[in-house]
């Protein structure tokens, strides 16, 4: 059955490509194809130990599959970890497609075919049980993304994605070959590890390879270009869905393949392995750098790209610390990020679809024209900023607590600062794009786009009220790793430091809202044109050269302080490496002088060298 599902999706990809001339039909076909993974993942829920009702079992699927292609066997199997990440991807994927039905107009066939292929690759990665199939599906995923990035026609985006994609592929290949030479087998479950230096190097190589997809500093350089210049539905899936694969692979290799005991044997720091601590530290750094850079952006997409980098850093922190609390927090953050970041990128796409603008300083007041988009963005931003009514808060709270429990005095403050930074740029989006004086006379976004956004925001609201349900989802994973799931009821999560009760929080929130509305409506409101605020009554003609947009120079002092430090630091390092390789290239080219006499001299020199070698030998 599993093979048939892969083949069906492949055929639907070809059908979608063949329908290139009819973008909408192609999109609808792809939408149906995109529902398949979701149905598959729901059907598997009982197999991994979740008590989902029987009627949700759409397919009778085998739990594992060994597929022989004649020269190698692909071993696929559903594991709790793979299931969880497949759930994330399979939920984000149909929404991205639903959005693109109205959004993608040019060459839609290629777009949809590549999207389905990337999903096929992702499914394979999440199910893979041996190195070969893992690597093959990883590359299929990676290269179908390239096909999508190429649609941006942006040289910088394509070159940076491709260079980093191949760099990551090669790091991964080197890493898995080291593992293979160490253990002599390709199958994950048969690998038994010694805690030696080879394994350490292999694991470091693997994690740095996965960090490219997971967008961790300093492998994040490609992301701002790709995120900000490709089509929005694709970016939503890339940032929301595919970037999680990097973290999936990190958990897989660190905790399943190599194992926590081997990690700990390389040294520990407050009961956390040094390896994990380093990862957590890099994650914290990523969160900080991403957030600071996001605050400085004026381009909506760039802002979202950097914010995505920042938010993904939190997942790495949780994976690095590796306690049950931290793991739950990391998985929760991964889930949140999937939904809110997809929703935000889609909303940005909807804004662009209607206004044709990306710059925050050229937008404004859209909340009056596109109220449903605005509300979706509002909820997504609550989750992003970790404001204490949404699931975003629960995730970050778990992570903070995990770090505090271990008394990580360096990581915890950075996390907190980055958390506050998230408020800053979230507010910039809200205020700059949706509030303020209306500047565009536009309609609400089309139905398919709205539906996509709202279906993504809905889970955030559900998990806001019932964070315990989420812990239920992750408990098979924790049990699988032999960790104790954290104690919870649907409304409360209890940890050693404190208990988080959403019921109380929500009651407080509703009370606060009632109070706020009462205050708001108790006095009559007066609308003032914003020029009045800015100019204090002076004639506007004098100040035409000044941008009076609310979001222009919004955090100017902040920018002034931080800009010198963050001016493309990592990128400059990579450019230096590239430059060095290019100089090597110039050297190699200089050999081929184009003069035939030189070429024959080379032959003579080679002859003499060989004879010399034989003589010495």
């Amino acid at each position, binding site marked *: 059955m599993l093979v048939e599902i892969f083949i069906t999706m492949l055929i639907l990809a070809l059908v979608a490509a063949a329908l290139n001339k009819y973008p909408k039909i192609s999109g609808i076909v792809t939408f149906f194809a995109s529902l398949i993974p979701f149905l598959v993942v729901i059907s598997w829920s009982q197999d991994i130990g979740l008590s989902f009702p029987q009627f949700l079992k759409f397919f009778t699927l085998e739990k594992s599959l060994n597929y022989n292609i004649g020269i190698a066997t692909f071993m696929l199997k559903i594991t709790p970890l793979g299931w969880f990440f497949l759930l994330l991807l399979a939920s984000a994927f149909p929404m991205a497609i639903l959005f693109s039905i109205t959004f993608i107009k040019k060459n839609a066939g290629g777009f949809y075919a590549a999207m389905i292929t990337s999903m096929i690759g992702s499914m394979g990665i999440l199910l893979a049980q041996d190195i070969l199939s893992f690597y093959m599906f990883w590359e299929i995923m990676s290269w179908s993304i390239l096909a999508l990035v190429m649609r941006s026609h942006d040289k910088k985006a394509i070159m940076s994605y491709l260079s980093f994609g191949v760099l990551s592929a090669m790091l991964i290949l080197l890493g898995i070959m080291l593992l293979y030479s160490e253990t002599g087998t390709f199958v994950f479950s048969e690998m038994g590890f010694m805690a030696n230096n080879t394994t350490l190097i292999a694991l470091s190589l693997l994690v740095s390879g996965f960090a490219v997809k997971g967008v961790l500093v300093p492998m994040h350089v490609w992301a701002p270009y790709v995120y900000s210049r490709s089509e929005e539905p694709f970016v939503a899936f890339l940032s929301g869905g595919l970037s999680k694969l990097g973290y999936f692979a990190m958990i897989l290799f660190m905790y399943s393949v190599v194992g926590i005991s081997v990690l700990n044997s390389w040294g520990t720091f407050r009961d956390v392995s040094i390896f994990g601590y380093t990862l957590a530290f890099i994650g914290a750094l990523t969160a900080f750098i991403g957030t600071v850079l996001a605050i400085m952006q004026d381009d909506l997409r760039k802002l979202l790209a950097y914010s995505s980098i920042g938010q993904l850093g939190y997942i790495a922190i949780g994976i690095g610390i590796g306690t049950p609390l931290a793991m739950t927090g990391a998985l929760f953050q991964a889930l949140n990020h999937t939904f809110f970041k997809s929703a935000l990128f889609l909303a940005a796409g909807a804004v662009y679809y209607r206004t044709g603008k990306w710059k925050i300083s050229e937008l404004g007041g859209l909340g009056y024209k596109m109220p449903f988009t605005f509300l979706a963005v509002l909820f997504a931003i609550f989750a992003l900023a970790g404001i204490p009514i949404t699931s975003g808060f629960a995730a970050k709270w778990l992570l903070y607590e995990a770090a505090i429990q271990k008394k990580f005095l360096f990581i915890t403050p950075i996390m907190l600062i980055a958390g506050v930074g998230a408020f800053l740029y979230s507010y910039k989006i809200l205020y700059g794009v949706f509030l303020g004086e209306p500047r565009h006379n536009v309609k609400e976004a089309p139905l398919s786009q709205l539906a996509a956004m709202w279906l993504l925001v809905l889970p955030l609201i559900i998990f806001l009220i019932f964070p315990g349900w989420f812990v239920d989802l992750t408990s098979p994973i924790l049990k699988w790793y032999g960790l104790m799931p954290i104690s919870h009821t649907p409304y409360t999560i209890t940890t050693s430091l404190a208990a988080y009760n959403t019921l109380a929080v929500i009651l407080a929130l509703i009370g606060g809202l009632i109070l706020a509305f009462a205050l708001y409506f108790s006095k009559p409101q007066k609308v003032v044109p914003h020029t009045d605020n800015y100019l204090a009554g002076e004639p506007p003609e004098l100040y035409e050269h000044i941008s009076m947009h609310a979001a222009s120079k919004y955090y100017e002092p902040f920018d002034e302080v931080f800009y010198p430090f963050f001016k493309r630091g990592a990128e400059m390092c990579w450019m230096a490496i590239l430059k060095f390789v290019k100089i090597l290239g110039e050297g190699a*080219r*200089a050999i*081929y*002088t*184009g*003069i*035939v*006499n030189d070429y*024959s*001299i080379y032959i*003579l020199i080679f002859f003499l060298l060989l004879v010399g070698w034989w003589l010495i030998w």
Partner: protein
Amino acid sequence: MTYELLVPIFIVSTALISIGLYGVMSKKNILKIILSLDLMDTGVNILIVAMGYLPGGTAPIENGNYKVYVDPVPQALVLTAIVIGVSVTALALAIAINYYRKTGTIELEKEGVMKW
């Protein structure tokens, strides 16, 4: 086998090959390069013919009048090699003529047009 007899031939062929190589390495003129290649070829051919040489040997033709005959295989090889050499030279000259027609010179440019 009397290798002493072959020593002068070795010297001659080595000299021819060296001269040819020197010509290829130093000359810009296409004709001179082709001539140098021919010299190399000749040097190699002489060497191969000498391989099968026996003092006083004749060709191995079956008329019953010989006692010692030289090895026929190197001769066959050299014949083939000569034919090939001639055809390569002819083709090279033809291309050189065409090159001359296109560029008006028979010298390969000091810095090749196509390089790096």
